[in-house]
């Protein structure tokens, strides 16, 4: 039965067609949209559902077009705007004519998707027998047209063709092939629906307009504006991209306080999945959301996030408000570039906080946990506390990590985190590297390369990265319970490695039987990092922090350490801190063995020398000493790797930690 709804996501379904294979089978095609296709080749009639007209989105830039029925023009134009915003490189980037011609002739087409942080992704998928194209024969192509006419909603589309969409590049030419079609279309669909929700169609004097906040447009360019290097091409429609860092004021003094993490996961997911708000959320993690929203006059952010405020969450926002074509997730770079050029166009960047306005004054006692409300007395055992209603409710939500209260000896708190600021920079650097080093790009003019780098918009790439990050977290959790000891027994069980909050996979607590337990957890993390993000191993936006201490150690001190990771691997074993990148960790893991008293003395001596003299040279002289060089050749190698004597010593102490028996 024919569908009556317009599904923006379907405008790119043709990209799943293997043009070459179809041509080899005698089907005549031009490009990857099918508005000019000769349907008599397949003995079928032209599709006629609303979604069919999405095929025209590449060529319709105005509501005055007569190519399709007027009724469908607004949806197609809005799709075209959304598509532009979702592309990794602006469709209107200002490359040379020669480059554009080469691209048109498909000279730059690469096989499959290029994942910036995992370049061999597509090859591995191909080895597993997976292939990007969904339509390779006339019969499959016929089914594609049937699907366009019958598809009822985007979910059907993603469910049926998800596997192919994830392997297909949104644009198959190098270096445009860095976003998978699944992510690109998810993003396009969300943006399209927000544009549609906040604009209206007007017909006046027989002319069609789209209006948003009293700004009427007839063409795509009028709404979005031109490129950043076109100072007079001002766009009329201004929207906001907002990074929301969701924080809480509570500190952890009891295990029940961890329930705030559960509350945060719940509220972010509820907002991101609610049918009224989900399209505003382009992507999210368990402590972060990226929103696409209209200006404040149209949608008040405090009202949108009212539930967060009521539950006393604090949302720190980085908000870019700009003409549509200028919106980008690399906000700070774009802001600097924008303000270094003389232009009359509109781009603003703000830092704001969304939270409940606290009272000007509180009468004692103040809530011991959040310190933002008046607290009522709450006694437990011999401890008297003061808690506000919010914190009391959180305490009453249940007892996470109940087993922890029974543990003795040492335990480690562990958190994996994605640093969004670092991610944006890393993606930018990886794209530049791809443009410079890709074999196909070697014949491209340096000016074109520079223009491509400047035109890069990392939003969709960032969204795809977050999906892989979530996958890494899930697999990390599975792998933890697959670790074996020397006898082949399971190293951690669900009772000795706790995930205190269901579905919150960034945070765990485990029993430390020995230094080896900590090292096995780090090994699992680094192995997965190398598998999922091989190009990020040296400079990773994904970080692992582990805080090791006696089980009585203050929880909030663990959390403070876990919340501010400095490097890829941060370990605190009070009072020592060991901060390492993956390469340093691997080197130490390989070179430093089990206990060796002489090595221990030597490392202590080196650390002392370094502390007293603050001189690397004096340390090296000691290491170069003939006897020392002979006795401890490994130390020299480690110093050559950039490790300090203190790091080596801290690692040594961690690795040789004795078996702890209760």
């Amino acid at each position: 039965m024919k569908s009556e709804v317009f599904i923006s996501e379907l405008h790119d379904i043709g990209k799943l067609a293997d043009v070459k294979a179809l041509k080899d089978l005698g089907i005549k095609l031009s490009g990857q949209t099918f508005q000019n296709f000769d349907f008599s080749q397949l003995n079928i009639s032209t599709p006629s559902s609303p979604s069919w007209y999405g095929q025209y989105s590449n060529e319709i830039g105005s509501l005055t077009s007569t190519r399709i029925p007027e009724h469908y023009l607004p949806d197609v134009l809005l799709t075209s705007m959304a598509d532009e915003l979702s592309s990794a490189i602006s469709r209107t980037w200002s490359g040379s004519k020669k480059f554009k011609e080469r691209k048109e002739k498909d000279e730059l087409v690469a096989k499959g998707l290029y994942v910036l942080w995992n370049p061999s992704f597509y090859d591995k998928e191909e080895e597993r027998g997976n292939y990007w194209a969904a339509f390779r024969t006339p019969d499959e192509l016929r089914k594609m047209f049937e699907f366009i006419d019958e598809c009822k909603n985007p979910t059907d589309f993603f469910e049926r063709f998800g596997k192919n969409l994830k392997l297909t590049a949104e644009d198959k030419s190098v270096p445009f092939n860095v976003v998978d079609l699944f992510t690109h279309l998810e993003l396009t669909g969300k943006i399209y629906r927000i544009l549609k929700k906040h604009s209206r169609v007007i017909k006046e004097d027989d002319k069609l307009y789209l209006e948003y906040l009293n700004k009427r447009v007839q063409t795509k360019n009028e709404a979005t504006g031109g490129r950043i290097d076109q100072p007079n091409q001002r766009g009329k429609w201004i929207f906001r991209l907002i990074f929301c860092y969701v924080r809480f004021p509570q500190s952890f003094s009891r295990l029940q306080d961890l329930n705030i993490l559960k509350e945060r996961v719940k509220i972010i997911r509820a907002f991101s999945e609610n049918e009224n708000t989900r399209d505003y959320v382009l992507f999210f993690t368990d402590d972060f959301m990226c929103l696409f929203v209209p200006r404040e006059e149209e949608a008040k952010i405090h009202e949108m996030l009212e539930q967060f405020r009521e539950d006393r969450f604090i949302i720190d926002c980085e908000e870019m408000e700009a003409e549509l074509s200028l919106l980008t997730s690399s906000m700070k770079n774009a802001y600097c570039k924008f303000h270094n050029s003389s232009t009359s166009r509109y781009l603003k960047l703000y830092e704001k906080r969304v939270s409940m306005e606290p009272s000007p004054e509180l009468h004692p006692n103040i809530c011991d946990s959040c310190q933002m409300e008046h607290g009522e007395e709450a006694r437990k055992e011999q401890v008297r506390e003061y808690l506000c209603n919010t914190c009391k409710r959180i305490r009453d939500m249940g007892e996470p990590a109940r087993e922890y209260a029974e543990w003795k000896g040492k335990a480690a708190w562990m958190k994996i985190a994605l640093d969004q600021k670092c991610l944006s920079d890393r993606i930018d650097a990886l794209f530049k590297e791809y443009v410079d080093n890709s074999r196909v790009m070697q014949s491209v003019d340096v000016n074109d390369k520079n223009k491509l780098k400047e035109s890069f918009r990392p939003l969709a790439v960032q969204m795809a990265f977050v999906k892989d990050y979530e996958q890494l977290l899930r697999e990390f959790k599975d792998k933890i319970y697959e670790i074996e000891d020397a006898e082949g027994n399971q190293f951690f069980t669900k009772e000795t490695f706790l995930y205190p909050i269901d579905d919150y996979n960034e945070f765990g607590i485990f029993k430390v039987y020995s230094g080896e337990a900590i090292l096995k957890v780090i090994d699992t993390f680094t192995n997965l990092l190398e598998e999922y993000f091989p190009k990020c191993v040296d400079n990773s936006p994904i970080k692992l922090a582990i805080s090791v201490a006696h089980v009585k150690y203050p929880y909030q001190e663990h959390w403070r350490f876990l919340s501010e990771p400095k490097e890829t691997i941060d370990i605190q074993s009070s009072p020592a801190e060991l901060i390492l990148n993956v390469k340093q960790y691997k080197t130490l893991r390989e070179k430093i063995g089990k206990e060796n008293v002489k090595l221990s003395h030597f490392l202590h001596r080196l650390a002392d020398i370094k502390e007293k003299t603050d001189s690397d040279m004096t340390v090296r002289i000691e290491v170069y000493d003939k006897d020392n060089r002979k006795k401890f050749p490994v130390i020299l190698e480690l110093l050559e790797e950039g490790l300090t004597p203190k790091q080596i010593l801290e690692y040594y102490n961690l690795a040789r930690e004795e078996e702890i028996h209760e």
Partner: protein
Amino acid sequence: MNDSYKTFLHFELRTQTVAIGERVKGGTFRPCIETIPTSTLKGSFRDHFGLEKVAAIGFFRKETYERAVFTYSPFDALLKTSKLPISLEYLKPKKGSPAAIADIYVVKDGVAEMFIKSMPAEISIGALKSKDFGRCKIEYVDEVKSDLKIGYLKGRLLEEESSTFGIVKIIKACYGYLFYPTSRVSGVYKRALFEGSIVKGPEILIDGAYEYDYD
């Protein structure tokens, strides 16, 4: 006074152990902050010099201190029982530094100028004074004229004191509360600007510039 200037009297404070608490949390652990809020200095100056209306704020120099934890069992004199042990976090001199050192800035006015005459002096700040924590030496350094700058606030001050300190605009408020004594035995918590707030104010209060837009 020119709007672009605020004049402060700069003092240096040195201590061997200091625990300026966030409030008691769960009763068993008291973390320590690394700045000296206006309320802490106000209380100390009132106790030691009888000054009621001095506006002052302080910041420990990062390179001079490190954190440590002290555990003790408070004794309830009334019930003659010991309570659960409390772990108190405090600042002590970093290895190689003779003391944990803080810069104190006092808003210059007639009262504050008189205050210089009491220098150098010994004062106590923070928690656990009975165990000798928080004993400090304070001495006058110089007068500082501070330009206006937009950036991230690096200390804690009552919101109602912001104009006294020369803050002309609060761009992003990170709120918390500071205790404000209303008599010797009672007080209230007043809303305060905490670290990370974005303000337009004297440079000495700013830790890093804010370079973007604001309304």
